[in-house]
């Protein structure tokens, strides 16, 4: 069987972007790692009793508290004099990070715990059936932002979570994408080489929630990056390091690949608005090659 710390037999959907990213993260972190996991798809599909996919010590408590649980683990390891030898990772979905888990995350970042927080961003509450979260992009069709005669889907832009994390003055913030697996692992290793709180946000397509074929996960993820809709960058001690886009693609290419944006294809004005978001990202994070 393949060498991995997240074993198969889990019950993620076929083509799940979060399953890809979670395995890349833990395999990059290695076996001397303890994970605190928020409630969500990842927790559910990997730990249905009496089975577990995890080969590292792993704990799930609640939906919103993995940052605080990880703070406790880190404090316990410090007390035991073992912190230097062991990585602590707190991980959550986008809702568990940017909505219900934001307070505990902010506390963990502010207190300076030596923990890497990983947000697997599939841009809605997928585990409960594709409801809108604070990281759902503008115009997206979710079950709680359905397009209709009075709505073009989610009315609000994504919460700028990486910038919120960076505003805590932490040493390392990075975004990444399931479309670039090696980049995820490189950033995890870099993050874990730095002492103090670290924040990583990984864009992980959800074939079910985004309504694309299960074999399109990598391509859809790449399109989000190539259009500027999912900017890939790092903040190293506050300094912005963007991943430049060689050939910037129009957002339509990304939108038409997914059922959650299907309603936009007859709405040029809405597409323009989404393009404006991509253009803003490209300028803000200096993505132009």
């Amino acid at each position, binding site marked *: 069987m393949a060498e*991995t710390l*997240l074993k198969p037999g*889990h019950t993620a959907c076929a*083509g799940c972007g979060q399953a890809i990213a979670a395995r890349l993260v833990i395999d990059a972190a290695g076996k001397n790692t303890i994970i605190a996991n928020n409630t969500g798809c990842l927790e559910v599909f990997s730990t249905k009793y009496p089975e577990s996919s995890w080969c590292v010590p792993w704990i799930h408590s609640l939906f919103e508290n993995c940052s605080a649980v990880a703070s406790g683990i880190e404090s316990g390891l410090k007390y035991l004099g073992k912190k230097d030898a062991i990585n602590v990772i707190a991980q959550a979905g986008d809702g568990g990070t940017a909505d219900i888990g934001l307070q505990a995350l902010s506390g963990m970042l502010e207190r300076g715990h030596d923990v890497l927080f990983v947000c697997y961003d599939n841009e809605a509450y997928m585990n409960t059936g594709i409801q809108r979260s604070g990281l759902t992009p503008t115009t997206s069709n979710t079950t709680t932002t359905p397009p209709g005669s009075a709505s073009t889907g989610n009315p609000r832009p994504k919460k700028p979570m990486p910038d919120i994390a960076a505003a805590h003055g932490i040493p390392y913030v990075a975004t990444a994408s399931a479309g670039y697996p090696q980049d995820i692992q490189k950033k995890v290793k870099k993050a874990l080489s730095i002492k103090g709180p670290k924040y990583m946000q990984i864009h992980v397509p959800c074939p079910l929630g985004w309504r694309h074929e299960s074999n399109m996960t*990598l*391509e859809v993820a790449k399109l989000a990056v190539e259009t500027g809709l999912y900017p890939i960058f790092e903040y190293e001690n506050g300094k912005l390091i963007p991943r430049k886009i060689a050939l910037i693609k129009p957002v339509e290419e990304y939108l038409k690949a997914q059922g959650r944006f299907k309603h936009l294809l007859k709405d040029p004005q809405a597409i323009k608005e989404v393009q404006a978001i991509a253009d803003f990202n490209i300028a803000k994070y200096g993505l132009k090659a």
Partner: protein
Amino acid sequence: MIGHMTSKPGSSTANKTGSWRTEAKPKFLRKNCIACRMCVYICPEGIIEGKGKNEFSCDLNYCKGCGSCAKVCPKKDIEMIAEMEKE
């Protein structure tokens, strides 16, 4: 009374998710493989392994048939074939 407090590491391998496949499964042609490992990286189940060129394989006990490996292969050296077809 104490019990059922933890589950064992990696025990999910008892659950053979290969039974989920209904239509297609990957076939590793092993002709033009350049060992770029993209199929290994992208597999959501983490069940593709191999070292050198044309040496990669997938554990069909767990493969859910998502087709990501075939899609990502730059040399079109992985093919999705009908579930009933012999490898």
